[in-house]
């Protein structure tokens, strides 16, 4: 943080150095080393500072380091001092503040300090989102984020205060033995759920992710919302859980998964679309976590561990591929100056690297083998199928959850075919798309590192199983029934076979056809003069599916249809607003404002009126006191 003013080169070096150190520190507990603890001699706010890096914290810290590094490298080129003279330095400062505060959130073992770190994290995220604060959209997005985030913090204040009240100390640790604490998990669900972007609480997420600079979006979507998941995971293991908590979390997960991707399909703004996919993937993570909670409740850890491992691995996977996708979207924005998909097209030619990396991320997020997204979805699926086939009591939830998870995968595939097809394939729709250029080596390098992570987890998932098992054991807090065999070994082998075969066949085909390939205009059933504007648009591509979801998407259409015998210009535009924000939160907020307006009538700045209020209040007090027998001594 100190080097953020000393010049970008020093800043990059020190940020990388810091994150590498944290990375190594995070690997240790996951590799089986004992939990690291440090207690300060001095105190902050009347409490000793306690830092503790256990398996769960280290698991999230690892992701934080990877995305933090990639984003720092990327931002050197993307948000450099020449293009953004006023905000580049500010961006570097808040970037490190955010990394540091998130690291603290993951490690502090004291409720008071957790709240402090949480608040610094929220505020630094706000400053990062609003780096480009000349733009009114950015300011609005930042404001909504700040308001929503503080609502969550308010719930967390109540939560931690309640914990401290019941245990008599701000220190955090396993408290399963105090059953009175169970109801407070709902408070945690609200507070952490807002940060995670669970479905009805996600109102801040799309606009904040879309309007932030892309490396910030990557950090927000890849890591920051995972802090909410971290809270739910951590306190899901420390608190005694109410019986319904698992069902609620899994239900919210299903809703987030399906509706998140449905909203994504309705978007035309590239980054906003990606933001809604974060809601979807948070849903998948929550399905895994929710079923782990149900398993704890029913004392059946053998399938709960699969669901939990899947959910946790999806935390990593989503962090990797979503950061990759946001960085790719940032390159597109950088090269063309627009996020509007209907103004793009044919970008694979000027920017082949970005197109390749973005497509890889897209295939990973759709859960296609042999990439990492499939591994975690497969684990969650296995947990659900195990719950169903062993006829446990959870089958009532597992069957619909499995079906909805399958639907989510297919919906995500439709959405990303739309994105890749409209943005990177076909013909450029506008001049700016035509003149696009590939991004520089730093931006490409950051994307390549994340893409390599996606491929590595996809091809060698079995290597991660011991770490996942360790985290899951720490979460369940027990060892019995935990001798789960490494089911990822055959899957990894199958992935490797498929990947090698596909590579070989593709290479052979390309080589053997090189000599006998001719180029011609798209045949298109003989249509002679196709223009770029006649290509299928993002809106029409998603039209069938958004039609099924109109009940919640509520798209707004502005159209001027051709009329009369000699019609002049016609136009049609549609957009899908954020339904929860527009239809529920905004009317409620307006109603509160209206009610508050009534109170304004009392305040009109006339001294006589205020004196009258004083007298009236005194009289009222007197009337209240004297009939009761006067003041008692």
């Amino acid at each position: 943080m100190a080097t953020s003013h000393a010049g970008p080169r020093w800043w990059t070096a020190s940020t990388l150095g810091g994150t590498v150190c944290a990375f190594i520190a995070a690997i240790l507990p996951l590799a089986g080393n004992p939990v690291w603890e440090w207690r300060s001699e001095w105190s902050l706010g009347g409490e000793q500072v306690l830092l503790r890096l256990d398996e769960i914290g280290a698991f999230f810290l690892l992701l934080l380091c990877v995305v933090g590094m990639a984003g720092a490298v990327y931002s050197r080129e993307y948000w450099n001092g020449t293009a953004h003279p006023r905000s580049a330095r500010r961006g570097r400062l808040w970037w490190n503040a955010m990394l540091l505060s998130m690291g603290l959130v993951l490690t502090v073992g004291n409720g008071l300090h957790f709240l402090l770190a949480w608040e610094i994290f929220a505020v630094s995220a706000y400053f990062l989102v609003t780096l480009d604060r000349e733009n009114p959209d950015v300011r609005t997005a930042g404001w909504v984020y700040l308001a929503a985030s503080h609502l969550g913090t308010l719930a967390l204040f109540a939560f931690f205060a309640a914990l401290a009240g019941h245990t008599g100390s701000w220190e955090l640790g396993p408290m399963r033995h105090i059953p009175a604490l169970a109801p407070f998990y709902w408070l945690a669900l609200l507070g952490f759920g807002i940060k995670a972007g669970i479905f009805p609480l996600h109102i801040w997420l799309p606009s904040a992710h879309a309007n932030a600079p892309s490396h910030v979006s990557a950090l927000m979507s890849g890591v920051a919302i995972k802090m909410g998941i971290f809270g739910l995971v951590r306190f899901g293991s420390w608190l005694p859980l109410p019986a319904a908590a698992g069902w609620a979390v899994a239900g919210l997960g299903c809703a987030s998964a399906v509706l998140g991707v449905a909203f994504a399909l309705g978007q035309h703004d590239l980054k906003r679309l990606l933001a809604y996919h974060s809601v979807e993937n948070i849903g998948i993570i929550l399905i895994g976590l929710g079923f782990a909670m149900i398993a704890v409740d029913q004392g059946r850890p053998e399938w709960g561990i699969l669901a939990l491992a899947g959910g946790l691995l999806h935390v990593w996977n989503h962090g990797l591929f979503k950061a990759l996708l946001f960085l790719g979207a940032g390159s597109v924005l950088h090269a063309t100056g627009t996020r509007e998909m209907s103004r793009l097209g044919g970008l694979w030619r000027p920017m082949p690297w970005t197109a390749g990396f973005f497509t890889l991320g897209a295939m990973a997020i759709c859960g296609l083998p042999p990439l990492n997204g499939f591994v975690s979805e497969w684990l969650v699926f296995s947990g659900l199928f195990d719950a169903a086939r062993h006829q446990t009591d959870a089958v009532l939830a597992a069957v619909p959850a499995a079906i909805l998870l399958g639907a989510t995968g297919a919906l995500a595939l439709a959405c990303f075919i739309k994105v890749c097809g409209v943005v990177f394939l076909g013909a450029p729709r506008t001049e700016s798309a035509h003149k696009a250029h590939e991004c520089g080596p730093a931006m490409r390098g950051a994307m390549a590192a994340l893409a390599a992570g996606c491929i590595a987890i996809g091809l060698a998932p079995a290597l991660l199983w011991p770490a996942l098992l360790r985290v899951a054991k720490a979460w369940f807090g027990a060892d019995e029934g935990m001798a789960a065999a490494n089911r990822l070994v055959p899957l990894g082998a199958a992935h490797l076979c498929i990947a090698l075969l596909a590579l070989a066949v593709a290479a052979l085909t390309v080589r053997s056809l090189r000599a006998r390939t001719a180029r011609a205009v798209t045949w298109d059933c003989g249509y002679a003069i196709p223009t770029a504007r006649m290509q299928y648009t993002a809106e029409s591509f998603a039209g069938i599916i958004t039609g099924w979801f109109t009940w919640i998407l509520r798209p707004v259409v502005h159209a001027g249809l051709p009329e009369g015998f000699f019609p002049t210009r016609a136009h049609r535009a549609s957009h899908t607003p954020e339904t929860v924000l527009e239809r529920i939160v905004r009317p409620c907020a307006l109603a509160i404002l209206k009610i508050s307006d009534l109170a304004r009538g009392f305040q009109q700045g006339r001294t006589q009126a205020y004196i009258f209020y004083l007298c009236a209040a005194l009289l009222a007090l007197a009337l209240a006191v004297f009939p009761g027998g006067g003041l008692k001594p």
Partner: protein
Amino acid sequence: MSVFIDTSLRLLAWLILAPLLPGVINKVKAWVAGRQGPPVLQLYYDLARLWRKGVVISTLASPGFIIAPAVAWVAVIGAAALLPLAGADAPVSFDGDVLLLVYLLALARFCTAWGAMETGSAFEGMGAAREVSYAILAEVGIITAILTLAVQSGSISLSSMFEPLPGPSAALLAVGLFIILLAENCRVPFDDPNTHLELTMIHEVMVLDHSGPPLAMILHGASVKLMLFAVFLAQAVLPLSEVPLVMSLALLALAVLLVAVAVGLVESLTARLAFRRVPLLLTIGFLFCLFPLLLTWMGEI
């Protein structure tokens, strides 16, 4: 070594036998219409001819246009290799391989739709949009069918999940899977494989601009996919694991042939569905898969 031979034999069977099915279907259609029809081996001739031809690709297309059909073909073959054939277990088998099968088919779908978007043609974009949209409902049906089999057999590995279902469940599941088979393989009433120039089609329109060996890969992959669904349907419904190996293989072949004949009959006797009805029929297919699930599950409570 024996594993190696077993795998190669199995792959060869899939690769060589699959193009028979479209031939059988066309023969049945010709027979119902009172025509002579193309020979049963027509697809083999087509494939051989396409394989020798050159390729014409759109000026807009990226290298992905050639790579995508190859990857899709590998994905479909990989999915087929995971399926056991009657009593003969698959060479690779592990818990959860059935999900790998479903997602390999999704990978193939991604590649085909990708290839369609390459050309910048509104026509092909339309086909891709329909393919991925209807696939959602089909996928929901497949997952439900798999859940039924998993609950019945207590297994999520393809080699042991095909346990005989009780009669009514088997009948319902057969209808449900048959509807999904028709949708996933783009047959009537969802799509008409005979037309090239109609606004209502799905699969054919996605591959309009493909030619030469990539088109051969697409056509061959489509026939393997059809056979995959037929084999899945036959094993899910018939109690093949209870008869000796040779007998069960013969039964399986007969059942797959029957499915092809049924597809041909449906194609001859029904018209293609109006487009807005397609989701309705797919939902019916899903319900046909859901009822056996409920029956199996409630039957044991």
